[in-house]
Each structure stands twice: as structure tokens, then as C-alpha cells.
């Protein structure tokens, strides 16, 4: 084509396109009759429950009219719906008291995500290819029921596996019932940054298999061991409010806060004093403090059961004298003594442990050591200390018996790959172990062994993409939601909320789907409820009413929460049958990788935005600058300035981090808030298939984490991998930062 005809053609097509687009095509869309009466422009606030972490914060959801694009009978059009538009914290909720973290605020994007799965899907390409075709709910559930029937006929019910999140809510109880009534093994629960080690330690020290609640508001001296309690650990909103009161809520009293950790977290950045102990030796430091306090008779040297299970306690912990502690932890002896005296002299004082210190092969010892320290200063069950919140037993409330058991994902994968009969039908609900488990566990390969994988996910993440059948759940705003928090309040709390809006798509609530499958089987499971909300109604009706003029169920639905004193028969029994018979002493943490070849400790930590990566699909959270580095939309690796200078790595340079498991490339962020022998990397990025916003962005640190575990619980010791770091090249475009370089760096350059 010559130049002249090209210009002519451009002019003609441009003009006709402009003419064709005149008018307003929006008004030509047909409108469908709305399903409900909605007064336009009037906002209604309805209760909800935040689904993003175990904290179980209460929501209040702003619902208003909106026009939704829908397709009905093959015809595209508009319909007016009552749509959730904004999430806020519920002001009268005992956990979050009106607060809501940035992640909770972004949860609204789950419902309106453009890559949400809108209808049941059947795999049409190879497994993992991401090719699916539509299938009706009836066909999908019929197909699934036939497969389960076939297993039952063959007497092979144990070939069913159910992968789910840990937790003690009603959804988990329903899953337990579904699995046990069918005759399948206990569900497989996995959470990368779980608190199993903490629970186990609390069971041994205090007889409570539960994560503790902290009364920060009344503490005057807080000693933190790695717990990022203002960012990602336990119940961050409740702890954030308590921390605010501790620092500024009392006239003339500002609680002191010392944080011990090898990498400065968002929480550590708030501390008065930041102490970097060698990874895996935090328990030694805790006992070093206890030694000084006992040797100098600063406290009565009784710590009850929590002290008795620490080896050498009755002898005054002679192995933990300050000079020995200095050799072990790298914290100077004088500093150990000063901290011990300060900690002993201030009342009330509390210590708190969580996160990286427990993610070592000796994590249980570290947790026990900090527990003993708490017991020594008398902070257990005292104002300003730690306590255990009564927790509703969802099994008893639902009128059932038995205590739920869980398998580990490591065992599941090992069994599936060991040549024993592979699982036939695998259900996946709310977990993405292909992304969050170390590659050495071979979860992906284990799932490949399964004949039929069913996912309830709303998005095609790395695990759901392997499914043969996707039965998408409603979003949490479209279905009954509930949570039974384990920590964060002084009284028992059970949150529940009805749907705040009608489902946008052809999805179904997973609880209802499980009950439906149970009825479709040739030998029905005889679950006592028709729908999930019937189960909730029956369970909440068993609770004592909090108000005189309404029963517990009516009241809880209206407020979004039930809380109050719990009758003993409905309280979860968290104690151990018998106290531990052995004592625990420090064992050097076991690391993967030789210290010569791999000189650095590798610390993958929960991202403030994405936690373990399950929220990386929400663009608001991608856009949210990390509180310490201001990085967003990317992966980075944090390196101490002295280390960086030695390795000739500049800020933003591309570096390679290699462990015995593999290598990753990321941009370096030079930051003084990390020990020289540690490099750290946030979890969350590096998704392969997880919506348009997360796929192909950054790297996943878990890919180079070795499968070291804490032996008592089988929990992954995610901080126990050693790496080497080398510079690959100058900065490129892979690191996006909101505020340019680190502030300290900028100051130095001036």
C-alpha cells in the first residue's frame, strides 16, 4: 500500500469509527428487573466478618444501589443491585473495636475482582494448563457424587483427601463432619505462617493449646521476641489498639517496648530499643534474662510449670549466665543484664514471642523459654500480661461430639508419592500449598497423583489451576460468614453475619455445596442440616443470649457477633491430658546448608500486604507501599549495608540468592534494620497463575526454602535455610519504590 492510500484509508476508518460511536450506548443496554427493592442513593450498613486471617475481625459493610453488568438468557444488560461498596471495622466488635487493617480494607476487591471465577468449571486441557470449560452445577455435583459413590462401593473411602486451612470455625467443623461421615482420613491443614509451635509450647507451659491474648493496654514494659504483632502476627488490629493505649493512653505513663529480632519488622521499627540476636538463639536470650533476674533476686524465682519444664531452672539456669548468652546470641553481656533489670523492675511487664524465632528446628524451646520468662515476672492471667481467651467449641455448639484431628501436608504429600494407593479425590478449600509449601515436600507432584482434584476457590491460583473441577464459592460478602477467634479479646467471641448482597455470579456457598453432595450420595451422609446457615442457626441458638429481648441467634445476626461468658460445656477444651514428663534445654538450631558455602541466614517473612501470598491478587495491596522499604508491585531482598559493601552490592542492584534448593533473582534493598549475617525477603510475590495482578510478578522465596521442620509439631522451620548472595548486575526496572531510596541512604548521599 502506498502512502497516499494509507492516509486515505486512515481518514475514512477514523471518521466512520467516530460517527459510529456517537450517541450513548450505555442507555441502549436493556435493564433487567432487580431482585429486591432498593432505594437509590441511600446507604445501609450491614454487619460482616473479615475472612482474610485468623483474627476474625468484625466488619460493617456499606451497601448501596449500583448497576451491574449481567448476562441473562444469553442477553447482556444492566440490573440494579444492592452492592457492597466499603468495608469498615465494626465499632462494637470485641476484637477490633472499629478498627480494620489495610488488608481488611482491600478485601472488598475480592468480590469485584475481574478474574473471579463466575461459574463451575471443568478442566478441558492438560492438568495445570489453565484451560477450562463451563459446566452446570447439576452436572458438576452429579459427576462428583458418582465418583464418591464409586469409592464407597469399592470400600475405598480413605482415598479422599480434604486440604483446608487450620482454624476452629464452623466451616472447619462442617468439613470435619463431611470427611468423617464419608469415612475419609482427617483433613489436611496447612498454613505457612501458622502458630502450631506457639500452641504446643503454651500447652506444655500453661496447659492451654491456644495462642495467647495480650493485654497491651495495661503493660508498662513489653519485651518482644520476633512477633510482628503490629503488622502480621496473631490479631494485629486488636494488638495495634492495645499498643496505642500502652504508649499514649495513660496520663504520664508511656510503656517501654524492646524488640528482639534479626530483621527489623514494622513492629520492631516502633520499638524503643531493637536488639538483634543470632537467628535461633532468642530462647537463650530469654533464659539469660531469667538467669540475671533470679541470680540478683529481682523476682521470686518461681515460674510454676512453665519454669519446671525448662532444664536447669531449679539450679538458677547456670548455663545461661550473661557471658555465655553473649557468646551464643551475640548480644553483649552488659546489655543482657541491663534489660533483665529493667524488665524485672517494671510492673506489669510481659514478653511475647512469635514469627521467625519459632520458625527454627528449636522453635519449641524458644517459645517455652519466653513462656517461662512470662511466668517468672508473674504476667500470666494478670492485667498487663498474657491470658487465654475462652473459645467456643464449635463441635459442641453444633450438637456434635468428637475432637477434630488434622494431618500435615508434608505427610499427605509423602504418602501420595510413596507408592501407596494415591488419593483418588482431593478437595481443596482456601489453601494454596503448591505456592506456600517448600518444593522439597513435592505437593504439586502429590496432587498430580490424584485422579480427581476439586477446588472451591474463587481464583485460579497455583493449586486450583490443577483442579479437574472448580466449584467456586461465593465471596464472603455474598454468603453467610463466620469466625471463632482464638485470641484478641477478653471474652469468648463468635462472629456471624448474613450475606450483605446477592451473589453476582453463578457461584454457590461451599458449606451448602458440601451438604448438597452429602445428600446426593447413594449412602447419604445424614448431616443434620440442609444448609450452612441452618447449622449456624442451630449452633448459635445453643449459646446463652447476651440481651434480654432477643435470643442469641437473632441478636448475633443483627450485631454480627456473639460474645459473653461461655457455659463450660460449650468451651473448647484446650488442655493437655497430662503435663510433659521431660524437660527442654537449648539445642543449637539446625540449618540447611553449610555455613561456609552458604554464609547467610535466609528469612522469608510474612508480607504486610499479602501475608503468605494469598492476597497478592488484590491490586490495592499490590499498590500499598511496604511500611519499611516503600516497595510495591515487586520482590526485593533486604541486605545490611556492611554486608552489601563487602559484596559490592549497591541499592537496587540485581542479586542472586541461592540455597541448596535453588536460586532466585531480586533487587537488593540496602537497609540498616537487618543483622549483617541475615538476608530477608517478603513472601507473597512470584505467583505463576494468580489473576492478572499477581501472575509473573517478582519471585517466591519459599522456592529456595529447605524442608527443615520443628520436630514436635512438624511445622515448617521457614527461617532455617542458609543462602549465599552474589551481585548479578546494576538496578533494572524490577524494583518499584514509592519513596525512592531508603531514607538513611538519601541522607548519606547529601
Amino acid at each position, binding site marked *: 500500500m502506498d502512502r497516499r492510500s494509507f492516509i486515505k484509508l486512515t481518514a475514512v476508518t477514523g471518521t466512520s469509527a467516530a460517527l459510529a460511536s456517537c*450517541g450513548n*450506548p450505555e442507555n441502549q443496554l436493556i*435493564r433487567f428487573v432487580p431482585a429486591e427493592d432498593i*432505594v437509590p*442513593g441511600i446507604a445501609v450498613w450491614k454487619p460482616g466478618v473479615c475472612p482474610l486471617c485468623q483474627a476474625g475481625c468484625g466488619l460493617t459493610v456499606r451497601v448501596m444501589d449500583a448497576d451491574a453488568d449481567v448476562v441473562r438468557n444469553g442477553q447482556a444488560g444492566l440490573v440494579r443491585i444492592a452492592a457492597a461498596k466499603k468495608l469498615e471495622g465494626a465499632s462494637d466488635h470485641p476484637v477490633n473495636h472499629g478498627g480494620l487493617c489495610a488488608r481488611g480494607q482491600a478485601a472488598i476487591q475480592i468480590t469485584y475482582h475481574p478474574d473471579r471465577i463466575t461459574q463451575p468449571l471443568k478442566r478441558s486441557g492438560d492438568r495445570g494448563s489453565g484451560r477450562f470449560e463451563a459446566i452446570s452445577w447439576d452436572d458438576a455435583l452429579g459427576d462428583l457424587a458418582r465418583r464418591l459413590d464409586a469409592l464407597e462401593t469399592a470400600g475405598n473411602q480413605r482415598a479422599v483427601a480434604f486440604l483446608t486451612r487450620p482454624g476452629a470455625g464452623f466451616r472447619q467443623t462442617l468439613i470435619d463432619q463431611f470427611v468423617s461421615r464419608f469415612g475419609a482420613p482427617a483433613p489436611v491443614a496447612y498454613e505457612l505462617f501458622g502458630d502450631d509451635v506457639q500452641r504446643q509450647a503454651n500447652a506444655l507451659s500453661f496447659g492451654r493449646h491456644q495462642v495467647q491474648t495480650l493485654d497491651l493496654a495495661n503493660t508498662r514494659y513489653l519485651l518482644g521476641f520476633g512477633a510482628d504483632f503490629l503488622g502480621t502476627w496473631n490479631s494485629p488490629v486488636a494488638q495495634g489498639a492495645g499498643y496505642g493505649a500502652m504508649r499514649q493512653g495513660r496520663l504520664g505513663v508511656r510503656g517501654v517496648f524492646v524488640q528482639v529480632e534479626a530483621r527489623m519488622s514494622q513492629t520492631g521499627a516502633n520499638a524503643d530499643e531493637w536488639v538483634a540476636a543470632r537467628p535461633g538463639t532468642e530462647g537463650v536470650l530469654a533464659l539469660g534474662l531469667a538467669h540475671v533476674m533470679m541470680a540478683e533476686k529481682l523476682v521470686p524465682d518461681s515460674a510454676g510449670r512453665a519454669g519446671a519444664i525448662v532444664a536447669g531452672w531449679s539450679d538458677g539456669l547456670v548455663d545461661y549466665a550473661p557471658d555465655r548468652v553473649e557468646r551464643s546470641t551475640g548480644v553483649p553481656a552488659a546489655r543482657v543484664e541491663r534489660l533483665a533489670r529493667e524488665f524485672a523492675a517494671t510492673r506489669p511487664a510481659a514478653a511475647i514471642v512469635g514469627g521467625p524465632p519459632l520458625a527454627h528446628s528449636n522453635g519449641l524451646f524458644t517459645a517455652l523459654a519466653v513462656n517461662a520468662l512470662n511466668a517468672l515476672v508473674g504476667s500470666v492471667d494478670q492485667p498487663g500480661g498474657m491470658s487465654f481467651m475462652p473459645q467456643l467449641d464449635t463441635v459442641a455448639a453444633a450438637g456434635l461430639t468428637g475432637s477434630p484431628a488434622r494431618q500435615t501436608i508434608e505427610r499427605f504429600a509423602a504418602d501420595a508419592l510413596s507408592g501407596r494407593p494415591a488419593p483418588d479425590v482431593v478437595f481443596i478449600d482456601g489453601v494454596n500449598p503448591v505456592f506456600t509449601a517448600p518444593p522439597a515436600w513435592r505437593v504439586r507432584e502429590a496432587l498430580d497423583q490424584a485422579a480427581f482434584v476439586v477446588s472451591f476457590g474463587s481464583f*485460579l491460583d497455583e493449586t486450583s489451576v490443577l483442579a479437574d473441577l472448580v466449584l467456586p464459592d461465593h465471596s464472603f460478602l455474598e454468603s453467610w460468614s463466620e469466625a471463632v477467634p482464638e485470641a484478641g479479646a477478653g471474652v469468648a467471641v463468635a462472629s456471624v453475619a448474613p450475606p450483605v448482597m446477592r451473589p453476582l455470579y453463578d457461584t454457590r456457598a461451599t458449606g451448602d455445596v458440601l451438604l448438597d453432595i452429602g445428600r446426593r450420595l447413594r449412602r447419604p451422609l445424614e448431616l443434620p442440616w440442609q444448609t450452612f446457615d441452618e447449622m449456624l442457626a442451630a449452633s448459635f441458638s445453643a449459646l446463652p443470649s447476651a440481651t434480654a429481648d432477643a435470643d442469641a441467634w437473632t441478636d448475633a445476626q443483627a450485631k454480627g457477633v456473639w460474645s459473653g461468658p461461655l457455659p463450660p460445656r460449650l468451651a473448647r477444651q484446650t488442655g493437655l491430658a497430662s503435663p510433659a514428663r521431660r524437660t527442654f534445654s537449648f539445642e543449637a538450631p539446625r540449618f540447611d546448608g553449610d555455613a561456609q558455602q552458604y554464609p547467610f541466614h535466609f528469612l522469608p517473612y510474612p508480607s504486610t500486604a499479602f501475608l503468605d501470598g494469598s492476597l497478592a491478587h488484590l491490586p490495592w495491596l499490590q499498590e500499598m507501599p511496604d511500611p519499611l522499604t516503600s516497595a510495591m508491585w515487586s520482590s526485593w531482598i533486604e541486605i545490611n549495608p556492611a554486608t552489601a559493601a563487602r559484596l559490592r552490592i549497591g541499592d537496587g542492584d540485581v542479586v542472586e540468592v541461592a540455597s541448596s534448593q535453588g536460586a532466585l533473582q531480586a533487587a537488593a534493598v540496602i537497609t540498616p534494620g537487618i543483622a549483617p549475617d541475615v538476608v530477608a525477603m517478603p513472601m507473597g510475590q512470584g505467583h505463576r497463575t494468580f489473576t492478572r495482578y499477581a501472575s509473573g510478578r517478582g519471585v517466591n522465596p519459599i522456592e529456595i526454602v529447605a524442608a527443615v521442620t520443628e520436630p514436635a509439631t512438624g511445622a515448617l522451620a521457614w527461617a532455617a535455610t542458609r543462602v549465599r548472595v552474589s551481585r548479578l548486575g546494576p538496578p533494572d526496572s524490577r524494583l518499584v519504590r514509592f519513596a525512592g531510596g531508603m531514607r538513611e541512604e538519601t541522607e548519606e548521599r547529601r
Partner: protein
Amino acid sequence: MLPGQPTGVFTTARPTFGAALDDFLNRRPAAQQPIEFPHNIHIGKEIACDFCHEGVARGAVAGLPSIRTCMICHDAIATDRPRIQQIAALRDKGLDLAWQRVYGFSNEDHVRFNHAPHIRAQVDCATCHGNMAEQTVAQRSVEHTMGFCVNCHNERRAPVDCLACHF
């Protein structure tokens, strides 16, 4: 792209160049209503405005009724009239009436209008919308210029600072 997934992502841009140009020039086509709704007959039966425009006393927008509102009465009343049969048939097909707005400010005006305080101040609907008892399909019979608003605000000693109406 998975089956059933929406293809577009919401953006605030105009759907077409033409729409953008019309917006820029403040050109609006006359509203085309799906049926010729007789306001005069309904007002003659002494049905209050807020029976159908039910948001008017409570919030920012008065609202255009859905077909469900029509059928509250017309399931039983005047069911033999062709126009009523027409909307009953629409409802049975699951279709709503795609009303078009008659009044309203363009985005560039940066006006935030709220009906409720005007109703509370007992401004008659006719002040801004003309005498609807004389109209069948609603026509734009009053031009909502800034002078029109400010005159009334001055007369009634309502605030006239910019931020009362503009954002």
C-alpha cells in the same frame, strides 16, 4: 480467559469518543423514555411524588422507579390498558424499564446536589421540576443554571458559598 468471566475492567473513561465529545460540549440528547409515562394521570389520582421517587426525602437522589414499583398497583389496577399490559409483559420477561434521566448536572459542573435537604426545607417539587400535573412524559421545563439555584438560595437565606454545591 475463563468461560463466563467478564471481559472488561471498569474504567472511568467514556465508552466512546463521541460520548467524550458530547460530554465536553455539554451536549445531551433529549431523554427517550421506554414508555410514555403519564405524570398527569398519576398526580391527578393524588399519588405523592415520593411514592415512586422514593429516595427524595431520604438521600441525594430521588431515584427512578423499577418496574416492581409500577406493579405494586398495576398488578390490580387498570390491567386492561394496553400500556399496562405492555409493562406487565416486560416484567414477565424479567425486563425492567430503562428510564433515562431528564435532569442532572454534567460532570464538568462539579455540582453535588442532594434532594433531601431541599425537601426538608419544604421547597416544592414544582420549583425545580415544573408543574408535573400538566406533563405526561417528564420534560426539562426548568433550566438548572447556577443563577437559578443561587437566586433561590439568596431568597431563602440558604448558604451560597461555593462548597455548598460544588466540589
